């Protein structure tokens, strides 16, 4: 595993995690620039100089205008985008709580973190052909070695709570409505009770009633001690779940 940025930064990072046992995520000076080689090497700066620390039991809501880099930041934290600058460290529950640097980690370390520590819920469900809803939701538990019966009953309970009709559970979600797919996606993202949750507009296409259910689930996760970073488009949900807000501004275009 490579060290976190420069060595002095790495030491500061490790100290931050030992000094504060509640710290789950520490990001320093994150920047992201996309280079579009196919279009004359145009450079697009999506994010610049963002720093963020999140503790257990905190829900940081990212706010800012469209194009401020909110989703980009979440994707960088998940390791889905490679941050161009800065360092991101996440406490690894399995490994004595030692921080792992997402910005320099080997792929199999990132995969292990995603299995046990970091959960990500996007706006869209990635449908896998032929896999029934219940199996799809139970999968994150099964991949951690939870017995099949228990995983399936927990999946069923969560789907019921999210008002996904039971007659749909045995079907693959490809033909579901947008709201139903999104609720399946939320169930899949929240079932494993990851200690760090990254939520990218999980309530975008839901009606008010289901939005409340999702907000309740997020609050429960927070009270259980999960550290949460999220983007929510409606002020109502923000008000319910947030403990803190982080304002992002679009990077200055040169």
């Amino acid at each position, binding site marked *: 595993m490579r060290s976190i940025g420069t060595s002095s930064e790495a030491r500061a990072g490790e100290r931050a995690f030992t000094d504060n046992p509640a710290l789950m995520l520490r990001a320093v000076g994150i920047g992201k620039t*996309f*280079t*579009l*080689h*196919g279009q004359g090497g145009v450079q697009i700066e999506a994010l610049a100089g963002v720093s963020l620390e999140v503790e257990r039991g905190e829900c940081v809501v990212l706010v800012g205008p469209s194009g401020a880099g909110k989703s980009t930041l979440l*994707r960088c934290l998940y*390791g*889905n*985008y*490679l941050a161009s600058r800065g360092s991101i460290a996440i406490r690894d529950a399995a490994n004595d709580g030692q921080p792992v640097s997402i910005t320099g980690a080997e*792929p*199999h370390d*990132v*995969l292990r973190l995603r299995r046990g520590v970091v959960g990500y819920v996007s706006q869209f469900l990635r449908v*896998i*052909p*032929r*896999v029934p809803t219940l199996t799809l939701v139970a999968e994150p538990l099964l*991949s951690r070695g939870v017995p099949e019966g228990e995983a399936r009953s927990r999946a069923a309970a969560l789907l019921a709570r999210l008002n996904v009709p039971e007659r749909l559970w045995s079907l693959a979600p490809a033909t579901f409505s947008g709201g139903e797919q999104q609720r399946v996606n939320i169930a899949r993202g929240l079932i494993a009770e990851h200690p760090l949750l990254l939520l990218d507009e999980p309530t975008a296409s839901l009606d008010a009633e289901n939005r409340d259910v999702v907000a309740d689930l997020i609050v429960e996760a927070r009270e259980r001690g999960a550290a949460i970073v999220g983007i929510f488009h409606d002020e109502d949900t923000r008000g319910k779940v947030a403990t803190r807000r982080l304002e992002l501004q679009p990077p200055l275009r040169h």
Partner: protein
Amino acid sequence: MTPLLSARSLTKQYGGRNGCRNVSFDLYPGEVLCIVGESGSGKTTLLNTLALKTAADSGSLHYTATHGDQLDLLALSEPRRRLLMRTEWGFVQQNPRDGLRSGVSAGANIGEPLMAVGARHYGDIRYAATQWMERVELDSSRIDEFPAAFSGGMQQRLQIARNLVTSPRLVFMDEPTAGLDVSVQARLLDLLRTLTSTLHLSVLIVTHDIGVARLLAHRLMVMQGGEVVEAGLTDQVLDDPQHPYTQTLVSSVLPV
């Protein structure tokens, strides 16, 4: 965790042209690694070199055997190599007819590898063949028919059963879904996805289909002109491609 397969600067050239150059990577147990790239980029050469089907020109290749022994694959004796292929590896060919024996029945195609590793009880072998036919969703009452009596997609599933029946630890696949119609492809992909995760297989798959890679692979290696130009987590490489060629590859996928 020690890597199952570890390649360093692996090179195979055909008279100074083509082939693959300077490939290094580690494959960990339970990991599915996809090699993607256009045709002629050296994907299959790399796969064949890793599977010891063609000899490497230079570089090193190490494998951790069942009992934890580190094997230097490029210096392995022929009997050891054959033992390894029989007991710990599988190789799924692009064309099922290359991986099946056309002169014996479907059941025999699945049973043969078992016999090669010591199974002798006819009833057990036939039972295992029946089980595996069901597992790959073939009608087990057709166990005594020859491979030619099955459709292309069924033959491919038969080949997969033949390769997995001995519980290998490492499976090589060369375009396992190419040439199949999309509905059969989806079924085969789902099957592969389930089998790799339940059997905790390590898999190296060559494909030119980005969708296949996204569905099956934990990690990707992108090849162009015989070299690996980009490697990383599947979703990271596909959602945030860095290399010009990978960007072209990802943006060339037709939206459905």
